């Protein structure tokens, strides 16, 4: 489903996409379109894109095409979701220990929409760190 979502092809485009968005959360998926994990994630993203178009916008970035952020954002997972609001990185306490990003593929659309909504509400209030509605630590998964 990656062909239905907008791609960004260089660092400048990523920067401008985040800068130009005034009052919506920018969701960026870093990964490869051919990666199975990313394919799952892109499916979820496409499904929820229409539903959260009022408060979120989704972009895809190929980390091989745009390697500028790999080092600084520690992008070594097959699929990474990061949230930005008004040129500011928004962290989510997912219970996984890594508050910076979602680095697994989410299959549940509603779960993802809930997370993005929490991010949006927190970021609007000026928070840099929001708490995810669901705890994704391993003790609940297994």
């Amino acid at each position, binding site marked *: 489903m990656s062909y239905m979502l907008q791609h960004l092809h260089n660092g400048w485009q990523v920067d401008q996409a985040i800068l130009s968005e005034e009052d919506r959360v920018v969701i960026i998926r870093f990964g490869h379109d051919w990666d199975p994990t990313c394919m799952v994630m892109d499916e979820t993203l496409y499904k929820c894109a229409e539903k959260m178009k009022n408060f979120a916008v989704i972009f895809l970035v190929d980390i091989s095409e745009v390697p500028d952020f790999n080092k600084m954002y520690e992008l070594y997972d097959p699929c990474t979701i990061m949230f*930005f609001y008004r040129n500011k990185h928004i962290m989510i306490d997912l219970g996984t220990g890594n508050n910076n990003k979602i680095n697994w593929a989410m299959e549940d659309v509603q779960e993802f929409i809930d997370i993005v909504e929490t991010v949006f509400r927190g970021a609007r209030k000026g928070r840099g760190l929001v708490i995810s509605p669901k705890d994704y630590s391993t003790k609940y998964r297994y």
Partner: protein
Amino acid sequence: MPLPPALAARLAKRGLLPAGSESKPTQATSLSTPANEEVEEVFAEDYDEPMKADPDVIEPSTEIPREEPEAEEEDDTLREVPACPNRWNPYHDCTDYCRQRWGIKTWNPSDTMIRKRDRMLRKYPLPPEWQEIPDPETDRYYYWNTQTDQVSWLSPIHPNAVVTISAEKLQAVLRNDGYDKVESESDDSDEEGMEVSDSESSSSSSSDDEYDRRHEKGRISRERNKSRGGRQRDEIDPMDPASYSDIPRGGWSAGLERSGDAKTGVDSTASGPLFQQRPYPSPGAVLRANRGGK
């Protein structure tokens, strides 16, 4: 209560001290300066010929008539050396003024030196192409290979003999080679010279073997210096991580944080509960940092 000599000298200079006590401190100061000069002279002297004996040992020599006819013959090989005290300064070139002011140094070998030299030559006679040359600078003999133009302070077949090219030539080569090389060379020989002179001043016995032993000591100390210096350059400090792991050996700045070369965008110094609250910089800042790093 006796005044310290420095204070006494100062007071005498200002006329605050009576003339009777004045003479003593001034004498002391006047004595101290030549002593200092002498010490400096020794250091600088060893720049040229590290193997040479201390002039303090030889200088108070009595003028003796030379018994050996061969020494008399070699008088024409004697170099004319001005008795300029700056001769041991490697950056000083003697001019005509030095010659006029200080005169020509006289060759006055001490009898102990002659005796030891005779003994050494009896044990280790000179090979045919070697010639004995008196050195007025040190009041000693050195040995010169007329074919290869090498010199030695000992007979070349002596086990402790160091056969090298002459210090003058070495100096000329080093001077052409570059300033820093000369510096390092002078450092080495300074250190070594100090050790040699130390050993000599401590051993005031006039045994015949002292002549040889002194040279042996000088050589050993130089070799030790050499090996010590080499180790400093090559061997790794056991506490250096490079000595027990496979990381490369770094210089002074290895491992320091450089701007734009960050491993990660987050604050890497944060730890504990702060660790999970480190936001990444915005993409614009990342791009700027990347550009700045290159």
